[in-house]
């Protein structure tokens, strides 16, 4: 177990800046998720921590020891790769024992560690098989076992579940979490799957274009996104964005857009009152767009009409794609039993107290 400190790291590939000004303190035993779209630099940072990439500037510390010039094998970290990277010519036992053999541990001790880890992962019966005789999930387990036997200071995971089918991914996600709770090893986990990001990490690091956008707990990132990018990236379906203009009228303020005139709640007015006449961007989570039949009294000042053009019943909820007048499509996450028909023009209301407002130009958050 170890603390990892990343200080102002920059990584360039030729003229291309892959990571810029990346700073992060990771606590001992913490489970950190690096999340972002493809090419955002999350894997580059992970590989830099592993020592598989040389950073252009900055420093990485593992337990206060600068490691940017230390060889990968001397960093005492274990990494699970996206494609598992098992040694194809070795059986599972030898795959797991390889690092221990290099450390010249006694054969008996190696066997004990390998078998104990195999038991922990429920794969004792697979020890004599070669990787090509294993299913995707089993290979994943072996890759995990190979990392665990080393008892490293830090675990690095590079999208380890992305090659598994949806069902297996869910069960492996739970297993990884329970494993982390038992081992308490500092873990840095890269994914582009926001569901993994939300469910697994103590903290999420959202990245875009090589720059950190936000570092916070999953719930805070969801509830209080730092900017429009984070708001749109975290959450599925994504947040609805509506271009609007701020109107002021007798001490009340409205976000106005074709077919909509939504009153801004009292507690948000302080941040908006100087912006009258300006074009901003309103952000609404799908669950904050509600069918009017589901609320007792709909405030007419947060009501709008929308025509329903797609309904996706998901069992536990219903996703409704609706088009307010002259507007882009909005998505509403509704109760599965709400009566709504395709083509219907229905009244919808909005939880404005949970809505967000962003700058239209650079996406900075206003509230």
């Amino acid at each position, binding site marked *: 177990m170890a603390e990892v400190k990343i200080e102002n790291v920059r990584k360039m590939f030729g003229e291309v800046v892959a990571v810029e000004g990346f700073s992060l303190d990771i606590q001992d035993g913490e489970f950190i998720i690096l999340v972002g779209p493809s090419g955002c630099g999350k894997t580059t940072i992970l590989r830099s921590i592993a020592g598989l990439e040389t950073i252009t500037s900055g420093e990485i510390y593992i337990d206060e020891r600068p490691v940017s010039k230390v*060889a*990968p*094998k001397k960093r005492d970290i*274990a990494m699970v790769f*996206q494609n598992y990277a098992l*040694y194809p010519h070795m059986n599972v036992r030898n795959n797991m024992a390889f*690092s221990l053999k*290099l450390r010249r541990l006694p054969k008996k001790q190696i066997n004990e560690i390998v078998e104990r880890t195999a038991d922990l992962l429920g794969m004792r019966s697979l020890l004599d098989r070669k990787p090509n005789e294993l299913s995707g999930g089993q290979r994943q387990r072996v890759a995990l076992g190979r990392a665990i036997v080393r008892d490293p200071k830090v675990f690095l995971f590079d999208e380890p579940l992305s090659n598994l089918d949806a069902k297996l991914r869910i069960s492996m996600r739970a297993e990884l979490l329970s494993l982390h709770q038992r081992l308490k090893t500092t873990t840095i986990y890269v994914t582009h799957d926001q569901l993994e990001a939300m469910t697994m990490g103590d903290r999420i690091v959202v990245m875009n274009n090589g720059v950190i956008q936000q570092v916070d707990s999953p719930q805070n990132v969801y509830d209080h996104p730092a900017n429009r990018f984070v708001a749109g990236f975290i959450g599925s379906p994504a947040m609805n964005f509506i271009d609007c203009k701020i109107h002021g009228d007798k001490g009340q303020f409205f976000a106005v857009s074709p077919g909509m005139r939504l009153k801004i709640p009292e507690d948000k007015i302080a941040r908006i009152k100087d912006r009258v006449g300006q074009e901003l961007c309103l952000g609404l989570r799908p669950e904050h767009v509600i069918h009017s039949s589901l609320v007792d009294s709909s405030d007419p000042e947060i009501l709008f009409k929308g025509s329903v053009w797609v309904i996706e019943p998901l069992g536990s909820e219903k996703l409704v794609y609706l088009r307010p007048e002259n507007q882009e499509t909005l998505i509403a996450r509704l109760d599965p039993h709400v009566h709504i028909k395709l083509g219907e023009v229905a009244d919808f209301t909005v939880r404005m107290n949970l809505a967000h407002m962003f700058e239209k130009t650079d996406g900075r958050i206003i509230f």
Partner: protein
Amino acid sequence: MRNYVLKKITGKTFFWLACLLAIFFFIFPFLWVVMMSLKNPEAAQAVPPKLIFTPTFENYKQVFNAGDFLNAFKNSFIVVLLTLAANLIVALPAAYIIARWRQKWLSFAILFTQMAPWIIFLLPWYIIFKRLGLYDTYIGLVLSNLTYLIPFTVWLLLGFFEDVPKEIEEAAWLDGCSHTGTFIRMVIPLVKGGIITVCTLGFMFAWNIFLFPLVLSGYRSKTLPVIVYNFQNDNSLDFGPLSAAAVLITLPVIVFILINQKYFSRGIALGGRK
């Protein structure tokens, strides 16, 4: 339905006949040489050729009794083994580095040496090897073989190295393995098929090469193809012993290929893919 079955049977029969014909076409010269090696001088010279005859091993005895033959056999083996070892020692790391640094043009640049006709090297080599004391030595013959074998081996191995996932090497580094250790313990076992392929091709090349040893070897390092050449002279052609020697030379190559056949055919296909 009956027509369909009939068509299928006819098709298969033609297919097998064509296969047999092709096999016969390629194997006939060798069968002929084997037959010649088992005939006495009279039967060997008979016109028309005799297909039914009493086999004799006299020709083989004559070959073995010719003092040079066993010595040449030993020379050939030593030259081939040294050639294969040196070839792998140079070509494996070279191909690996070219593959990892994605400098494929380098392998084509190396292949350039193969495009010149062999004969143009012989006179300069003869003079240089004489001056360096490499004439009529194993090292001289090995060096001449390597000039042609290394570029070809590098080129053939590239595809195999490119197929080894980089992550496997990275996983080994993180597990505590050095770069050299990773190359030996991870990469080499994964290109085993390629190594066997290039060894088989190298064996065939170095075992059968005639022109280089003819010019660059003297009495001490004469190899088998040169010795076989000695069974004929300006006045006569001794078919029986010549055929027996040819059979004896071919046998090791056949055995080597049969042992490695599985890897060899797959290796050829893989190596040529990229």
